[in-house]
């Protein structure tokens, strides 16, 4: 379903000495089925932003619409909203609490008063889609490895069957192979379930390969919003914000500066390999 922010403002601790404008006049529209990355450094307002999407925070100015309905409306059913917009917070494994993996994943469905059998089915399905084996159902979540805990925690949100899935740094603290596994898994779930996915990260590198669109937050404002290549083309500005651009982008920029290739907007490995080896082949062909 679509999410629309219209001139959203959020002021923290209004009237106290630590009053802070955490979101500044933010407007955007995320369509059904989009794969969006939200990038920004720590304290840029990313977390505040996503908490507005399921009504955990209420904006102090402007409006937030889910499926074209204003969620700040008094009559709006917030419980259903939280079911529809699932948020996986940073280090979600820190919120595990039940005695077994199965019970923990079923926490969401139980809160929605979904009848027993149906809740069980959801639990199985959710665990299956994050790649946790049935044999772990009755194991304590605290006995799992770090990567498994992370998956179980994500399953806990998937079991709500959200239509929009928001993940805050889902790969933080994992080793490179673990990172890739988690991100691949999210991309797969998105395809299979046909849902909207919003990936929050402070690293361009992770997000670039997966998402279609990037929103860049800086100091509470939505600084950029566009396709991946549109955003990466503004390399200098990104660097000024203290954000990193993918190594491939940087390298292509260097090659461009050296007058070797023309402006390409390339940021993925495949594209870079294609363009650079093609050029090598051309040159060799000419030399022969």
């Amino acid at each position: 379903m679509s999410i629309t922010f219209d001139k959203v403002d959020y002021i923290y601790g209004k009237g106290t000495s630590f009053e802070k404008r955490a979101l500044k006049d933010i407007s955007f529209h995320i369509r059904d089925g989009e794969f969006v990355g939200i990038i920004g450094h720590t304290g840029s307002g990313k977390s505040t932003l996503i908490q507005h999407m399921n009504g955990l925070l209420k904006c102090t100015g402007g409006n937030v619409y889910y499926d074209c309905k204003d969620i700040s409306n008094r009559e709006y059913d917030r419980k259903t909203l939280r079911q529809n917009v699932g948020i996986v917070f940073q280090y979600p494994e820190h919120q595990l609490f039940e005695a077994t993996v199965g019970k923990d994943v079923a926490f969401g469905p139980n809160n929605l008063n979904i009848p027993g059998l149906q809740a069980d089915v959801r639990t199985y399905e959710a665990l299956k889609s994050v790649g946790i084996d049935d044999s772990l159902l009755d194991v304590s979540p605290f006995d799992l490895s770090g990567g498994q805990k992370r998956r179980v925690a994500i399953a806990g949100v998937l079991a709500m069957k959200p239509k929009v899935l928001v993940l805050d740094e889902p790969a933080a603290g994992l080793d490179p192979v673990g990172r890739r596994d988690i991100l691949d898994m999210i991309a797969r779930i998105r395809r299979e379930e046909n849902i909207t996915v919003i990936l929050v990260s402070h690293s361009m590198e992770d997000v670039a390969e997966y998402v279609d669109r990037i929103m860049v937050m800086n100091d509470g404002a939505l600084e950029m919003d566009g396709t991946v290549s549109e955003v990466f083309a503004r390399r200098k500005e990104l660097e000024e914000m203290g954000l990193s651009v993918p190594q491939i982008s940087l390298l292509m920029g260097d090659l461009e500066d050296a007058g070797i290739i023309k402006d390409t907007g390339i940021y993925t490995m495949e594209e870079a390999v294609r363009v650079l080896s093609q050029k090598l082949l051309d040159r060799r062909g000419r030399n022969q």
Partner: protein
Amino acid sequence: MIRDITIGQYYPSESVIHRLDARIKFIGTIAYVIALFLFDTFWGFLPALVWLGSIVVLSGIPIGFIARGLKPIFFLLVFLVIFNLFLTPGEVIAEWWIFKITDNGLENAGFMTLRLTLLVIGSGMMTYTTTPSQLTTGMESIFKPLGVFKVPVHEVAMMMSIALRFIPILLEETDKIMKAQQARGADFESGNIFKRAKALIPVLVPLFVSAFRRAGELAEAMEARCYHGGKGRTKLHPLKFSAGDYISLVLIIGFVVGMGFIP
């Protein structure tokens, strides 16, 4: 951010009182509390009021701030007044239905109210003018002799100061966990008291797990930095008595002794 909250009621300033050694303020407060119980006539309040008044003026803390500190004990005060006013035997000066107000009752009520108010403001002055960490250091130094009786003074002080540092962090964490569980449909706002208490389990379990994890990691980090208890430890800012502290000490002794002579 939640992290910005201040623990205790410290009122930041650079006044003479703020600059005094925490130990002096602690001793002074104890002496003042004792002095408040040394007399049983209204005359005793005069020097006590002057004493407290001068401290308040010297500290530069606004009266409004101090008055707010009395809010929590307001009902206790009201209760004490009613209790003393109506239930003390003596010569009746006013009567209405079954209620009788006696002269002794009036006197007692006034006495109690004044004493309690002075007590709360007085001890409040210590927390208003001393940061929690100064207070811990001061207490550690004062109670050091208890170490002879195997009282773990340094350890207790260290625990207090670590607690002070981690309270804001744990508050923030609580907020985060609550939001994460709310995102999974948890409801903390409706239902009766039992339902609400039960709803807290998904918050408390992760919170405890996290607190223990943090404690373990912190202990490791402290050990890695050569921490081995209070033995042979030096301080970056050791407590040192200045001239002002000695003068205050003399004044405090004078005050208590003086109060002792009030009939």
